[in-house]
């Protein structure tokens, strides 16, 4: 019998992975938003994600809610410890959420330019900072006895964290570019293929850089892999899938490009999970202070109740989400925005 704590560690990982794959492409569309020059192109970009972006973002809220419910001390420590970066992400998400609806409802140029900027920055900031957080969690953070972050703001901008942040940003950009390439027609499609190639190149470079850094400088990240060598399959799969994504872009197969790009992200998230397990936040000053699935969980009853909620709810959500995506498959038509 697998312990409930492990089940919830995995489930939160699954929810966040779905989030990164799905919101990945609409954050990515936002990254490229300003690179589309004409108003109708920008409307096409927005419309390509319009019917689904809000549902995609709910995966983040679900992940946050599940973390709060299953591992309250982790939720409390991460959100209060990283107060300023969290506030920055929050304001970015706010700006982004309203810019979808607000932008197209007024014709004035200044209005549209303002919301275009809000949408682009609101997408870029989370795309970058999510990776920076991941990088810091890989490295570990100094924690005090209460489990609160004991470092300063600037420590969070450690070069390794920035490399991982850059990798995340490049992968979001790639996911968005491939999405636009797949969903649009005409000039924009060719442009998007160029974006895909560019972001793929950046992702490949940063992937190599992060891998070397981990192997050379962060021995603790290797521990789980040495203990269970089959896990090496995960980073190897990520590398293969990244290469396949590049091949799909070169060979002009947008559908496969999107599939491989998504699977690259899935395998990287799995690699990340395998690296940090069982810690959510690894204490860099003293491993005994780490916030792990074992020492930070809710009561078994809460974890069981949550499992029932997830067991009933997630299949339903998956069912109608797939239905919605199927209903909107095919090339984008401008509408609503």
């Amino acid at each position, binding site marked *: 019998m697998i312990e409930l704590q492990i089940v919830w560690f995995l489930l939160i990982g699954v929810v966040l992975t779905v989030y990164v794959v799905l919101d990945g492409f609409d954050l990515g569309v936002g990254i490229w938003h300003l690179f589309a020059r004409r108003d109708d192109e920008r409307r096409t970009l927005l419309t390509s994600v319009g019917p689904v972006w*809000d549902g995609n973002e709910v995966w983040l*809220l679900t992940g946050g809610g599940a973390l709060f419910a299953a591992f*309250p001390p982790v939720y409390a420590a991460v959100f209060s410890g990283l107060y300023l970066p969290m506030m920055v992400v929050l304001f970015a998400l706010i700006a982004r959420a*309203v810019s979808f609806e607000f932008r197209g409802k007024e014709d004035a140029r200044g209005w549209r330019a303002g919301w275009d900027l809000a949408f682009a920055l609101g997408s870029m900031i989370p795309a970058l900072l999510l990776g920076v957080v991941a990088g810091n969690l890989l490295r570990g953070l100094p924690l005090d006895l209460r489990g609160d972050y004991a470092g300063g703001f600037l420590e969070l901008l450690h070069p390794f964290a920035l490399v991982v942040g850059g990798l995340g940003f490049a992968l979001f950009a790639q996911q968005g570019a491939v999405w636009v390439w797949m969903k649009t027609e005409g000039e924009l499609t060719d442009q998007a293929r160029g974006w895909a190639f560019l972001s793929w190149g950046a992702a490949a470079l940063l992937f190599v850089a992060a891998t070397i850094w981990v192997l050379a400088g962060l021995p603790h990240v290797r521990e789980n892999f040495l203990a269970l060598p089959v896990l090496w399959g995960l980073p190897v799969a990520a590398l293969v899938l990244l290469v396949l994504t590049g091949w799909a872009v070169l060979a002009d197969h947008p559908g496969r490009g999107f599939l491989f790009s998504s699977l690259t992200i899935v395998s990287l998230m799995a690699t990340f999970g395998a690296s940090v397990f069982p810690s959510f936040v690894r204490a860099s000053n003293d491993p005994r202070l780490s916030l792990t699935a074992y020492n930070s969980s809710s009561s078994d009853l809460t974890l069981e*109740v949550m499992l029932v909620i997830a067991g009933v709810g997630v299949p339903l959500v998956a069912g109608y989400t797939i239905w919605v995506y199927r209903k909107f498959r095919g090339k984008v038509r401008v509408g609503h925005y």
Partner: protein
Amino acid sequence: MDAVILARLQFAFTVGFHFLFPPLTIGMAWVIVGTMWKWKRTGEDFWLRISRFWIKLFAITFATGVATGITMEFQFGTNWAEYSRFVGDIFGAPLAAEAIFAFFLESSFLGVLLFGFGRFSRTTLFVAALLVAIGATLSAFWIIVANSWMQTPAGFELVGGRAELTDFWAAVFNPSTMPRYTHTIAASLTTGALFVMGVSALLLRRGKSVEEAKASLRIALILAFAANLAQLGTGHWHGMQVAETQPTKLAATEGLFDTQRGAPFVVFAIPNAEEERLDAAVEVPGLLSWLSFADFDAEVKGLREVPPEERPPLGEVFFSFRAMLALWGWFMLLTSVGLFLLWRRRLFEQRWWLRLAVWTIPLPFVANEVGWMVAELGRQPWAVQDVLLTRDAISVNVPAWQILASLLLFGLVYALLFVAWFYLLRKHVRKGPEPAAVASGAAGEGAAAVPGRSAADSDAEGPAAVAGDDGKGG
């Protein structure tokens, strides 16, 4: 200022601002279900244009509600870390359940509703509207569950410095959940209906889209009256529950200092917390006892039962409650008169009534806010009634200046949001529903704006299916 005050200010400001929007969208969602039902049944372009008009105003408000709602999920962790550690075992589950059971539903099918015209059948679109409304209404349920647990905690025990769940259903259906949920939903329906009523009245006064406005006004007026009437029941139920489970809150609401039999209901007074008395009081003897316990002679607990530092801020709670009651009375009067005029077939010519309906648009928002103040200030100084003090619930590791900085930023960003929301709403209200003739022409305009759009795509859009505003942007 100290961190507790700043964190409370920030929470109050962000949740108070957020709470402007969901009641409106919950209420409007059901009005839209009504107009979409008419469209599904009749297939008339008339009902399609009405539906799309309200959906547009709904979408603008929904986006603002979503954006400001994300803040709330962040804040428990950022500003109330001790609270999160203390109650996370119980409090997190309803938030996760809200996302899984409600927010996904709402968001996914709103996408279908906003982008589906011209693609999907009338039935699909009607079902989408229905699911959005159900999602919105369920969302409120889980949020009220979480908040009600703070009012009347149940189904838990204190273990090792935290509250641990012992009975999930007892926590979900704690004593205040259902009275507060029904009360909030009725308030939301009132808000949505009074908004639709007021906007329709505005269009009628301006002689714009007259038939569409009349049709909307009829639906909204009936819903507003019914929902407001229902508050007699839900409000009373809630009142009895507060008397039973939160006597200090009731005492603050009524400015009752001494525990007494045959307690009076105070119609008006100026409460004096320092000297512990009411000035200029107008009272109805025995009524509070009767309202609380269905017995004119029942004993009602007074504020002096608890030491001064455990009492809620008196004036705020006392006056907020009376403002809410007065607004309820006004809505009752306005909608009753409106129904009478509608029955006599004279409503649409009564310009004075239409004007009053327009002026009433902001009032349900005020009623919601003061109701929320009674609920939340009336619980102070507790974050979780009798279990956790608000001042012990904050993040101890976040310095005051960071809270202040983010509070100022919230003030600025929310002010901008409010202005943009109000501006767009006003603009699109004034435009009114698309006139019938324009509807088919604009579809072509929209099509022309997209380079490389295939002919097959254009064919898929029926002439009546795409209303004008979609095409105008390009």
